[in-house]
């Protein structure tokens, strides 16, 4: 936000505006930029998902809209969704039904605030960055439950309940798997975590010690469950639940669920990049290349997008887990492993 404040000062006459406008302007501009960014990113991710899925199944996927490999397909789909009639089922709880998409989307949007895209490209570097992410993520669950219940539909309710149970369960190993990194850094601030990893690939927390190495994979698996991606997509299991908690939604409200889902994918990839893959810091060791050649934000993107690609790749490779297998994996495998990692990292830090 600091850099946006500096940019705004370059525009003439902004100092002549009333003080309260000057106070509101930088956050408002940051929010608008962030929203546009999230929207474009989600559209790109949807296109990427369709292309990767198609190629993995020996098809071509969208090819016509826009000319080159159907790059404008997502834009066309978005326009279609925005223009469609907004249907509210007669038996639905109107107020909650309308509020739910916003409550699902706002947290995933708010979480982007602490994502460090570059040295100065961060909206707000909070002291409690990582904790803030987990706090904000817990709001999403309420929105999903709200959507499931307000639709007044069995499938929606089941989808919402499954999703909430899954997210709440996997939040615990996810939070614990972040601990080894925080023990090393000694701070919850996202920028300080990245700064502790600068100087090349050997300083990244994935390769720091065996505990953080395992913690990265643990976090990645848990994050798949938290964003309801395969192999943990039982909340939306098409073969059983139609489409889960957003079965009854259409038009713009459906678009918001979709937007939240794909921005969440990038979000968890960005968090994994920040915590374990060095964020905006360079890949090559500082002994070989003393100065960072590629700009930080571009590096951050490449790292996060490659993780998004892995998420998509897994979706079209792995089958879906059963509910009991899902809970078994969380409570009997991931949780003990996460506790061992925290203990090990703690002992190593004291040593």
């Amino acid at each position, binding site marked *: 936000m600091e850099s946006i404040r500096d940019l705004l000062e370059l525009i003439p006459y902004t100092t002549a505006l*009333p*003080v*309260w406008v000057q*106070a*509101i302007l930088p956050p408002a501009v940051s929010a608008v930029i962030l929203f546009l960014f999230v929207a474009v990113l989600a559209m790109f991710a949807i296109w990427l998902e369709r292309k990767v899925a198609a190629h993995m199944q020996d098809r071509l996927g969208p090819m016509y809209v826009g000319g080159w490999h159907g790059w404008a397909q997502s834009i066309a789909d978005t326009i279609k969704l925005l223009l469609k009639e907004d249907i509210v089922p007669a038996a639905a*709880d109107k107020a*909650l039904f309308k509020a739910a998409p916003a*409550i699902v989307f706002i947290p995933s949007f708010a979480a982007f605030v602490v994502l460090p895209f570059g040295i100065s490209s961060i909206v707000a570097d*909070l*002291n*409690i960055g990582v*904790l*803030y992410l*987990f*706090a*904000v*993520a*817990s*709001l999403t*669950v*309420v929105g999903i*439950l*709200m959507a499931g*219940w307000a639709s007044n539909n069995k499938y929606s*309710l089941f989808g919402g*309940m499954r999703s*909430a*149970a899954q997210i*709440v369960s996997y*939040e615990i190993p996810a939070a614990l798997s972040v601990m080894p990194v925080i023990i090393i850094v*000694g*701070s*919850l601030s996202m920028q300080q975590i990245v700064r502790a990893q600068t100087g090349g690939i050997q300083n990244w927390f994935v390769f720091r010690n065996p505990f953080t190495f395992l913690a990265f994979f643990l976090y990645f698996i848990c994050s798949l469950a938290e964003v309801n991606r395969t192999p943990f997509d039982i909340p939306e299991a098409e073969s059983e639940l139609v489409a889960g908690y957003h079965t009854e939604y259409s038009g713009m409200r459906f678009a918001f669920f979709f937007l939240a889902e794909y921005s969440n994918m990038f979000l968890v990839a960005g968090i994994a990049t920040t915590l374990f893959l060095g964020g905006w810091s360079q890949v090559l060791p500082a002994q070989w290349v003393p100065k960072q050649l590629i700009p930080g934000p571009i590096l951050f993107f490449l790292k996060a997008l490659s993780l998004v690609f892995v998420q998509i790749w897994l979706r079209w490779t792995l089958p879906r887990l059963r509910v009991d297998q899902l809970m078994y994996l969380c409570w009997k495998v991931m949780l003990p492993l996460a506790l061992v990692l925290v203990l090990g990292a703690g002992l190593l830090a004291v040593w």
Partner: protein
Amino acid sequence: MDTSLLSQIVFYFFAAVTLASAAVVVFSRSLIYSAFGLLFTFFGVAALYVFLGADFLAATQLVIYVGGILILLLFGVMLTHKLYDLNLKTETFQVAPSVLLMLAVFGVLVLAMMQTAWYNAGPRQPEPTTAAIGTLLMKDFILPFEVASVLLLIALIGAAMIVRRRAE
């Protein structure tokens, strides 16, 4: 208009959100609305913590109350379908004692409000509190901390035991 006035407006906005949603929680006829109203109450209280410079407390408030307790409440309400169709009404009315009790509680609250020296943190960047809280918990208050954790563990084991016995 200066920035302190702006922060006052924001403060009153969050205070209004907290109070209005708390009113929904109390007065709503349907339990599900009460449960969803709690979301905004917890959120508003977290925002008020931020105003006091307690950022760690604010985030923890959301993680524990929204991420844990509220979800459990919602599960409870949604899984017992008789609950959310229920029209809540008490059958016994005790007008005189309830009015008396209400006035007494109100008086105590007003008295407490008058006598408290209110602390105003003002609009500023919150200082990092996480490390200080951690040190305090692990050094000065290690015994209460451990006692609380053992208590929670007992509650966990107890809950698992009760469920297991029902299943047999």
